[in-house]
């Protein structure tokens, strides 16, 4: 952690009063009221429902029962899972590939980096808006370019078979450079002398990648994978802005259903139940990811590299 290590007396001196709590009070108050409380509120709300004469009463699992027997929601759960199973791995693999490519010291690499950072500054609304126009079936340039290549015009967002894929492309376009930023920072933190030992041993690119680079990059990778999953599980903007969940429910993500339940039909308890289901899905997925990415104390190869690389 660099800097000067605190003397043993110092912290005790500063700790002997209530002042740290005062410093924390404003932020803690805001976090408690605007972050923690709403989560508890929506979990609690998912067990309540509006009965006769608008009286709120305990509903047990009724909201969930309703959700899990509703074909619209079952479809949304499937759409959300499908969207995530494709988008997250695709984004991570592309981001890692670009990060590895940009981690070399060759000509123009700095310029490429800056150019590839640009989509980071663009949000989902703008990305969706621009892509929506580019992919307009009759007047967008995408079909014009395809036409020039001799490919017949595509329906894109107006087809239930293509719409989700189009949204996946938009999300990758916007997301890959963001995650690349983290992975590139992680790669640059790896001591390059570790690789030199491997070069002498004559390892191939893939051995180096899987037994050295990826294990060394673990912290950044876990962070990127977990954050990326959370964002994509709650994906909402493309469905809201571009497709309204259609065509034929093909892009109807759970978060969009939660939004509709609350703000179109004023059925808040249904909406809380959907969000609670999403929360559960999040915890399950992230639990699984942590389990699969848990530290297996590094492979033998990694340790050998570490010893040789750093021992010099």
């Amino acid at each position, binding site marked *: 952690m660099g800097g000067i290590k605190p003397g043993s007396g110092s912290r005790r001196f500063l700790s002997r009063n209530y002042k740290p709590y005062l*410093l924390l009070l404003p*932020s803690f108050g805001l976090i408690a009221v*605007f972050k923690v409380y*709403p989560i508890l509120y929506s979990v609690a709300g998912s067990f309540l429902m509006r009965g006769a004469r608008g009286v709120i009463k305990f509903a047990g699992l009724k909201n969930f029962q309703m959700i899990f027997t509703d074909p619209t929601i079952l479809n949304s759960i499937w759409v959300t899972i499908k969207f995530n199973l494709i988008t997250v791995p695709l984004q991570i693999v592309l981001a890692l590939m670009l990060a590895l490519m940009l981690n070399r010291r060759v000509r123009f690499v700095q310029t490429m980096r800056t150019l590839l950072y640009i989509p980071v500054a663009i949000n989902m609304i703008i990305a969706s*808006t621009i*892509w929506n126009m580019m992919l307009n079936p009759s007047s967008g340039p995408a079909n014009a370019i395809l036409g020039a290549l001799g490919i017949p015009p595509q329906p894109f967002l107006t087809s239930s078979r293509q719409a989700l894929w189009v949204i996946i492309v938009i999300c990758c376009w916007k997301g890959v450079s963001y995650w690349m930023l983290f992975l590139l920072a992680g790669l640059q933190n790896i001591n390059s002398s570790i690789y030199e030992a491997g070069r002498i041993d004559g390892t191939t690119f893939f051995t180096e990648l899987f037994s050295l680079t990826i294990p060394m990059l673990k*912290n950044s990778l876990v962070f990127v994978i977990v954050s990326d999953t959370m964002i994509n599980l709650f994906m909402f903007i493309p469905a809201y802005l571009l497709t309204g969940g259609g065509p034929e429910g093909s892009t109807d993500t759970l978060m969009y259903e939660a939004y509709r339940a609350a703000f179109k039909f004023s059925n808040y308890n249904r909406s809380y139940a959907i969000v609670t289901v999403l929360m559960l899905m999040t915890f399950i997925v992230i639990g699984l990811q942590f389990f699969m990415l848990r530290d297996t104390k590094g492979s033998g190869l990694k340790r050998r590299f570490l010893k040789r690389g750093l021992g010099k």
Partner: protein
Amino acid sequence: MITKRGTKEKILDLLYYATLIFFVCFALFPILWSLSNSFRSENAEIFKHISKLSLHTFIPEKFSLNSYRSLFVDNQFYRPLLNSWIVAVLTVFFGFVINGLAGFAFAKFKFKGNNVLFGIYLFSFMIPFEMIAIPLYKTVGAFGILETRTALILPMIANGMIVFLYRQFFQDIPDALIESAYIDGAGLLRVFFQLLVPLSKPVIISASLMIFIQQWDAFLWPLVAATNKSLKVVQVAISEFTGEFTVQWGTIFAATTIAIAIPIGILIPLQKFYIQGISSTGLKE
């Protein structure tokens, strides 16, 4: 690497640059396309060149600011622009003070419950905003501040990630420096503002950029919490163009160009700080 380069290396190099250039083009094409279209003289010109690919599909025939005039004069885009700025700048300011003080407490004090509290802060930054948006609507509604700027600012001020950033930075500032000032009789607030703040410019810039971008990009929350026309922010205004003016593409291009230019104009010169900020939240622990 002074060995003679073989054909294999040359091909690999070519492949390397070709792949990178492909990704750069893919990343930049939509932005440049929308930028170039925003300077066309009329909507008809946008559609005229689509069906047959030519140079003018990508570059306007005649450079014109018509779309921007229509955006500001007919659509009063300066209002959402101003709203977004007010909301973002106020959040940045209050976020700096409030998260900075919390970072100070976590970095330099040992107190009961400090791990649990820090855990809550970290947890709060891991959850995506969408998860809380709908119950937050009810919570903020209970305070009676929906449809005000306060509703857009207040819930976004405290930010676990920013607290984390400040804590990381303040930890590296020697305790002795703080103690001596403290013993000299300076209050904690004075220690924070007169001692820590001047030493912490890089982290303040990183944190402020992150809050600014977060507020500039905010959509779901302003969409539901501030439906009043006078409070509309840029992203909500743009999302409405997409529905309303299906043929007024020129206006949309002009609006997206401005909405992109502002964060890029701020981020490019300060990219070092922004990258430092977001990458240090991804690297540590």
